[in-house]
């Protein structure tokens, strides 16, 4: 029996024993088709999904390679049913191809007639296609290219899009490589994307997704529309592009609630695009304002539903999605696949961290015990008030003070959800507070001060925390806030995981009230962080001085 590092489970998860001598080889073999789900210390869990298998097909892997990878690296016999299923699933990709024909225009071609018959009979697909040219080909309305791909994926026959892209309006963009260059994995990501035409690059927070975007723009040399989550993010993109490329301020426009500039490179927010007045999306014209050669989607996993609908009409343009995770809380991974494109590059966090591009993080959960009076108040409180009671306990304040004191001199963020609590903390710590109500100018001023090291402590609300970029924060202390979702946590962690000048260890503290719902949310966070492979410890508040010494 071969002694491989991989164990294939019957629920289609793959367990990879990381300490095994050939673990890296196995990881490389399965990475194209399996999604990394959990990466704790000894065994990493990958999951094989149809989308993952189709991603692999899109990247040019065939079923034989996948089956071979499983059999070669597996320690035990691989369940036969799983192998059959893998082969069947992969075989479904590419039976249908979208092509551009010089004579007829866009058409759908099949290599398997019964499949074409099946999909043409489907009532949702029928209206999307035109006349049947012959037994293998059917015309497709160019405007339905996206919808058709979406529907085909839904019924399990994903189409390969080989219809090509318009070049768009040419515009010279170069990388300003004087004092820096793309890291190897960023270059690989750019190449992977360019080769595939359209698709998604998955990189962890802080791994330089913006630069991958810049690299792609330099490759396309065409007018570019960049869609980002919010205004602050838009400004960061702008600053980064000015710094890293040959683009000048006049060439970059911002299209947001405040400003409406359309320039060769335009950065727009999701919010402005999805603004509706009297049920009409008023800013849709932007999409056609220029002959864009490239559309970049930042944080694809947060892409709102209306943007998907608009994207369905942009299928002739090159699309680059950037994200830290393909997992969407709303389960619309399939739409990302069919409308933006398959995954073109992926690197697990830990690998990039090991290469020294991300600060290693030490995650500590500090448990405080509520005094008896508060326990009683908690026990008798209405369920909806309990979380607030538990997470805003005053006993947390001295604990936070203790942690702050311990890391005096290191850039530190205190993150919370409730404003009263934050105000009180700020007062006790003598720090400034940034909340959703803080004016943008004030916010940016404080950030700037933090960035240059004038101040080393900020208290921020969950709302503000979402969009900021604090490159030198190396300690984050969370005092309240539910475990919203995996991405939210990834984002929050990303705050402290930005590359540090001196390679210090980043610290992520969560202060939690024992035996309350607060601890339940913490349990989710603990699981997530441990799954991501971060060292995680739980300490009692009383043990704190020795634990962090």
């Amino acid at each position, binding site marked *: *029996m071969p002694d491989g590092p991989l*164990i*294939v*489970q*019957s*629920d289609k*998860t793959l*367990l990879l*024993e990381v300490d095994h001598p050939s673990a890296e080889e196995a990881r490389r073999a399965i990475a194209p088709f399996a999604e990394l789900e*959990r990466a*704790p*210390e*000894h*065994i990493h*869990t990958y999951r094989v999904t149809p989308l993952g298998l189709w991603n692999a097909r899109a990247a040019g892997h065939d079923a034989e390679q996948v089956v071979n990878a499983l059999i070669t690296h*597996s*320690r*035990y*016999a*691989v*369940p*036969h049913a799983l192998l059959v299923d893998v082969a069947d699933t992969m075989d479904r990709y590419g039976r249908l191809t979208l092509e551009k024909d010089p004579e007829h225009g866009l058409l759908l071609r099949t290599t398997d007639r019964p499949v074409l018959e099946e999909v043409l009979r489907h009532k949702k697909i029928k209206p999307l296609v035109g006349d049947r040219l012959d037994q293998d080909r059917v015309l497709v309305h160019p405007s339905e290219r996206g919808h058709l791909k979406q529907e085909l994926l839904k019924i399990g026959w994903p189409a390969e899009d080989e219809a090509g892209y318009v070049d768009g309006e040419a515009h010279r963009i170069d990388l300003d490589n004087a004092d820096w260059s793309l890291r190897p994995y960023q270059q690989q990501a750019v190449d992977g994307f360019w080769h595939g035409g359209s698709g998604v690059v998955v990189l962890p927070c802080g791994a330089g997704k913006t630069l991958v975007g810049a690299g792609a723009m330099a490759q396309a040399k065409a007018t570019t529309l960049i869609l980002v989550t919010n205004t602050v993010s838009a400004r960061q993109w702008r600053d980064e592009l000015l710094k890293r490329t040959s683009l000048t301020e006049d060439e970059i426009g911002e299209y947001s609630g405040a400003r409406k500039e359309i320039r060769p490179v335009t950065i727009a927010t999701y919010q402005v695009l999805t603004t509706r007045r009297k049920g009409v999306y008023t800013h849709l014209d932007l999409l056609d304002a220029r002959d864009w050669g490239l559309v970049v989607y930042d944080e694809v996993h947060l892409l709102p539903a209306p943007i998907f609908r608009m994207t369905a009409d942009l299928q002739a343009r090159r699309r680059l999605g950037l994200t830290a995770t393909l997992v969407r809380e709303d389960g619309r991974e399939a739409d990302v696949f069919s409308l933006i494109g398959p995954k073109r590059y992926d690197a697990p966090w830990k690998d990039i961290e090991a290469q020294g591009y991300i600060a290693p993080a030490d995650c500590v959960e500090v448990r405080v015990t509520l005094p008896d009076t508060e326990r009683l108040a908690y026990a008798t409180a209405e369920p909806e008030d309990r979380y607030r009671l538990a997470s805003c306990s005053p006993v947390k304040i001295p604990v936070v003070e203790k942690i702050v004191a311990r890391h005096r001199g290191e850039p530190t963020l205190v993150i919370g959800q409730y404003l009263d609590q934050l105000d009180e903390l700020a007062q006790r710590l003598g720090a400034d507070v940034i909340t959703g109500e803080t004016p943008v100018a004030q916010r940016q001023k404080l950030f700037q001060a933090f960035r240059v090291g004038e101040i080393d402590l900020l208290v921020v609300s969950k709302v503000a925390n979402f969009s900021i970029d604090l490159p030198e924060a190396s300690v984050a202390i969370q005092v309240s806030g539910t475990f919203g979702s995996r991405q939210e946590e990834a984002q929050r962690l990303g705050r402290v995981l930005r590359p540090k000048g001196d390679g210090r260890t980043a610290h992520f503290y969560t202060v939690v009230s024992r*035996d309350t719902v607060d601890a339940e949310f913490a349990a989710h966070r*603990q*699981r997530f962080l*441990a*799954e991501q492979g971060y*060292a*995680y*410890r*739980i300490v009692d508040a009383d043990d704190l001085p020795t634990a962090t010494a």
Partner: protein
Amino acid sequence: MADDVRARTDAELHDLLHRRQDLARPAPADLSALAARASTRASVQRAVDSLDLAHLQVLEAASAAPQPVTAEALAALLGATTEQVAPTVDDLWALALLWRSPEGLRVVRTVGEVLVHPAGLGPSASDLAGRPTAPDDVATLVDQAPAAARAILDRLTWGPPVAVLPAGTPERVATGARWLLEHHLVASVGTEQLVLPREVALALRGGRSHAEPALSAPAPTGDTREPGAVDAAAGQQVTDLLSLVDELAAEWGLRPPRVLRSGGLAVRDLKRLGSVLDVDQVRAAFVAELTYTAGLVADDGSLEPSWAPTPAYDEWQQQPGDQRWAALARAWLLTTRAPHVVGTTPPGATGTVNALGPDAHWPPARGLRRDVLDLLASVPTGLAPRADEVVASLRWHRPRRVPGSVDAVVAAVLREAEWLGVTGRGALSSAGRALLEGRDESSLAAAMHPHLPTPVEHVLLQADLTAIAPGPLAGGLATFMRLVADVESRGGATVYRFTPDSVRRCLDAGWSVDQVLGALGDASHTPIPQPLDYLVRDVARRHGQARVGAMRAYIRCDDETTLGAMLAERELSPLQLRSVAPTVLVSPVAAETVLDFLRENGFAPAAETPDGGIVVPQAGRHRTPLQRRSAPVTATGVDDELVTTLVGALRAGEEAAQYHRDQLASRPGPSLPSTDPTTTLAVLRDAAADRQPVWIGYSDADGHVQRLLFQPERVEGGRVHGTVDGTARTLSIHRVTGAAAG
């Protein structure tokens, strides 16, 4: 026939008795008796039913052919060569379904009763009292036949040879049938049936008895698998199966599902089992049935019975994987239960079949299972036959025995064999072959041993509160892990997840925190991750914080010294006092006794009501509840007034009675004694015959008896018809209370 049997050699008789075992039990007295028994209908039926298609077709051809038969004639009928047919003919003789008469081979007469229409051929024309039609004439006539007649012939040619023409048959068809009858191509049986005579059918069939002679067994085809891959796949399935059985036992040991009143497992419980095992219901039913068959779970026989693992399970669980498999596989091979019928609705039944219930017991399952497996064993090693070809082959081998549901059964057997590792990727595994060869337990286990992953004795503990066993865990550790953590994913490895609930479950089962951490530490090569250590300690910190127990009395006292004195008092030891708090003692003895004991020993306790009030002492004033007193009974004497009244009343009563008697006497007709119904009937019949009126008492709908002078006319069906005062009446005899001639 008897002569034929007597003429057989010992070896031939040995062969016959071996192949028709019913002939040997009870032992026949002599060879004549053997011959007689061999030609009984029951025995012939059994022998014919066990024939394969080749033998059956030859026997059918022989039955249809004129007697005596020859191999040449049969070969012609079957469209085969004599060499092909001859061995089968000899074999049928060896089975004593054919016998050698001085004139030649004959079919045992009873075969004709078993095979009513051999090869779908009707009776010979001579048996139908018609004249046989020469084959040439048939051809000529058929050419001339009208379309409707042709259609009927086409339907009857390859059997069944009987057509029913019920009243209301369309005219066109009826005309066709009449034409056929007129030309003696069919004969009529009874009023509505047509039958095609054997000679006509044979002529229409071109002299052949069977449309598709199948003298050789079909060879199943399919993909050929690498033997190594087959065994590896089998081993992998067995790993899965063993862990499923363990999980079932763990689940049912903890939460035993109840036994339905009709026996079996409720559909809801099967669903739950499916979700616990994370398999579909078909597989869940199979695992449940298999463990039941192997005696690993059973009805616990309690007052409210439930399904629970048996002590045999604990024994089984401690054995190595290969032996555990051997026990399961053997139980499966021999069981007469059919797990695949669970969840289906048998024809004619109202509900679905429950797992572990009596309806899942289906004796033919064992024979069919064996047949399928024997077939798998007969194909070349590594061949994975397709299911439909297995069915076809089974039909060939047992044409008269396969049930209608054979497709489902074969699919189920193949599926179950795969789950059990008897096959791997559809081909018989080497361990499966050992099972079919009937090897003993240890050599069977040895056949599976090399294909099962080596049990591991460690788990990998991770900071995300999972533990991974990178292979099957050895018995004790597996039980512990299932107790302390929930299974999250199964396969070559097992992923366990620790949750506060799972850890608490382990503590509930009596483990201490140090034992849990110690066992985890022993099972892991790496130190216990801090979050896991913290979780276990955190759960343990709260575990058992509140204690619950039952006692019959408590003693509370604010003065701890008093309670201390009570605890120290030797005389109070029968109260088994225990201190649960400085100011509270408890005792399993009833409160009254405790009070008495304390008082006797110089304490001054007060009793307390359940809501904490003091029971007011009522010493020396024990009373019954309030009693209701009844008034005393008194008698009063008889005075004159009463006597006078009484006498007056008596007198009046007597007069009334006399009046009533006079009234009765003044009525016409005789007095009417109540007569029994037989007499009543006789009187009424006589009166009807003589046309004389009778006096009858007739009980009307209200129960009053009327007196009627009735003129009966006729008696029938329990009623009598007649007239009363010239009005026609029909009276029920049972209502006539008495009758007397008028």
